[in-house]
């Protein structure tokens, strides 16, 4: 079946998605989600006449209704509302929309407010990166990448490293949670955002407590890197897996850098590099529209972003690709180093092991994540040393309302919130581009490559599900996780079609 011809017919969105779904020629492409809200991953794999992989598609359903829901809402209410987009990523949507609200009112946060925001945001990095690494990254290596998923999880990790280590990690991660609660103004869900400021001052006692908590988090960062070194770097097989070609996706990269070209989480300039590491563009704020285009695809509700200057080149990687990746590894690839000393040492070690930059091996996302965890902890330690953190100037005078863009480096990658308001600050339009959307193209490439490696001559190995999951786990997808109603699983189904488009085999993890 010449599937590429069918896809080319629809590239560019000449037909509406509804039309595509109703088109009999495309009935082999399953788009129907089993459940919208828990995030549904569906992979469709198409085989050629010889039973080898012709193409593979990773389809996700993302809840995008928030862009409409916030219309008519005062911009200052938006951070508290969009923090419900995702229970895990709550602080990042909160921060990006808060920065956008600065833009709407044409105001910069005061120096004190900015420092508080940065500590808050870095604390989120520590808790989120720790969760991903210990729940997702380490089990792949400690328990084994091909182990049964029922064992390849945190419980398997605890069995391997011991409950005491697990308890230590949880306790040190809690230091970050404590800071989020202290600064956010409310346990779990922050409420302290203000356009041009922050509604809650920091007392000297709180500053000293943050300093002590920062030491705990730095220790967590060091412990995490040590575990990575002991488990992965001292095992030649795992080093081979991390540095090998099976899980390699060659794309351009996007990340934020500070004025010294170092990795920046809360604020910075957004920088693109090509597949060889050469800088090809920088932008700030609304300029993102000049550099990022989104392709409507017939087989997914989620648009696929690509670099506007390079033009649409398809869902392919390699030197000519216009796809780009975001997240921990891309951030390190894009920057010339880390802003803090201990993280810089770890950064140099990672690139020494690979011997080149940029690194395209996606399993290195976890390594980069561990380095960033340490960096975020060091950032907090440095910021909390400054006694001016307790200054009373936490609010700026607002200008007239109009339009604002807030860009942060969320733990999973560049996050863009863009709002247009009326003169009273009531939202009229909203556009959100989240990390998983940026990474949609690279994830598809990774999934296809894994499928090509594990389906040969029509023989479908039952372990395929594991190996394909391994291809997208490093990105730690944020699907439509807006609700977590029980039973709370993320169904993944792989449908394999033969060259005539007939369903050949289905694998499920549910």
């Amino acid at each position, binding site marked *: 079946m010449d599937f590429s011809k069918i896809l080319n017919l629809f590239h560019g969105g000449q037909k509406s998605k509804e039309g595509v779904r109703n088109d009999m020629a495309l009935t082999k492409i399953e788009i129907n989600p089993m*459940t*919208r*809200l*828990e*995030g549904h*991953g569906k992979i469709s794999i198409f085989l050629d006449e010889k039973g080898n992989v012709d193409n593979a598609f990773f389809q996700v359903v993302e809840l995008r*209704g928030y862009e409409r*829901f916030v219309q008519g809402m005062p911009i200052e209410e938006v951070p508290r509302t969009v923090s*419900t987009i*995702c*229970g*895990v990523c*709550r602080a990042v949507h909160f921060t990006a929309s808060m920065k956008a609200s600065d833009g709407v009112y044409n105001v910069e946060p005061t120096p004190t407010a900015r420092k508080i925001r940065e500590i808050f945001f870095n604390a989120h990095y520590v*808790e*989120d990166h720790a*969760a*991903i690494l210990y*729940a*997702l990254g380490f089990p792949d290596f400690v328990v084994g990448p091909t182990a049964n*998923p*029922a064992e390849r*999880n*945190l*419980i398997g990790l*605890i069995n391997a490293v011991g*409950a005491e280590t*697990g*308890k230590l990690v*949880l*306790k040190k*991660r*809690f*230091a970050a*949670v*404590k800071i989020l609660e202290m600064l956010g103004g409310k*346990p*779990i*869900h922050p409420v302290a955002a203000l356009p041009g400021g922050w509604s809650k001052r920091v007392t000297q006692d709180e500053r000293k407590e943050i300093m*002590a*908590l920062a030491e*705990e988090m730095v220790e967590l960062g060091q412990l995490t890197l040590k575990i990575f070194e002991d488990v992965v770097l001292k095992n030649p097989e795992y080093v081979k897996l991390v540095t090998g070609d099976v899980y390699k996706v060659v794309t351009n990269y996007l990340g934020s850098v500070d004025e010294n070209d170092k990795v920046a989480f809360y604020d910075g300039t957004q920088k693109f590099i090509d597949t060889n590491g050469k800088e090809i563009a920088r932008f700030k704020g609304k300029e993102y529209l000049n550099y990022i285009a989104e392709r409507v695809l017939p087989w997914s509700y989620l648009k696929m972003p690509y670099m506007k200057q390079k033009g649409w080149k398809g869902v392919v990687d390699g030197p000519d690709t216009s796809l780009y990746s975001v997240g921990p590894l891309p951030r390190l690839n894009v920057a010339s180093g880390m802003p803090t000393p201990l993280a810089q040492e770890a950064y140099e070690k990672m690139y020494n092991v690979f011997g080149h930059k940029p690194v395209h091996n996606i399993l290195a996302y976890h390594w980069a994540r561990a380095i960033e965890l340490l960096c975020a902890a060091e950032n907090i330690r440095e910021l909390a040393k400054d006694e001016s953190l307790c200054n009373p100037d936490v609010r700026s005078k607002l200008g007239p309302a109009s339009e604002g863009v807030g860009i942060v480096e969320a733990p999973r990658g560049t996050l863009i919130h863009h709002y247009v308001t009326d003169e009273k600050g009531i939202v009229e339009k909203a556009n959100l581009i989240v990390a998983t959307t940026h990474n949609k193209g690279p994830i598809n490439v990774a999934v296809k490559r894994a499928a090509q490696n594990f389906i040969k001559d029509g023989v479908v190995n039952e372990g395929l599900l594991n190996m394909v*999951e391994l291809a*997208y*786990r490093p990105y*730690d*997808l*944020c*699907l439509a*996780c*807006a*609700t*977590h*109603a*029980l*039973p*709370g*699983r*993320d169904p*993944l189904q792989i449908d394999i079609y033969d060259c005539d488009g007939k369903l050949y085999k289905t694998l499920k*993890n549910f």
Partner: protein
Amino acid sequence: MDFDRRSIERKGKTVVLGIGNPILADDSVGIKVAKMLEGFVDTYVLMTTDFDVLDVLFGYERAIIVDGIRSGDPPGTIKELTPENLPNVLTYSGSHNISLFATLKIGIEILGDDMPKDIRIFTIELLDVDTFSTDCTPMVQKAIGEVVERIKMLVTASGKCKIF
């Protein structure tokens, strides 16, 4: 440090944790129950079932978790479960979908005696989790009051007889 301090502050106490999304119709049901119990007992709300659950439960003597469920029962159906008879889901493909079962199992294995001795989970069958709304559908709304009363009775009884 703070983890241990929190453990001392919570010793002997009960917490009610409501889980859901406050603006997705019936999915807000767990949060609504927790909000109605504010002032009566320690309450928290979460939009996730990951490690944050352990941060909330750590150190408490007893925990009551309220969450929506989609199991095919009629909307508004109330069930009372224990961690052992939650849907047994240990697999996850990302940090966003660690199940409540897995999180509680992890907590019990890692934190041991620092986890509540009694954990009960009230589930309420949902109908609509697609619509942006702060209101629940009528049958689900009706279940909220009953769950609140049942939790009040449990908490009151626990204060008298020291079991639950």
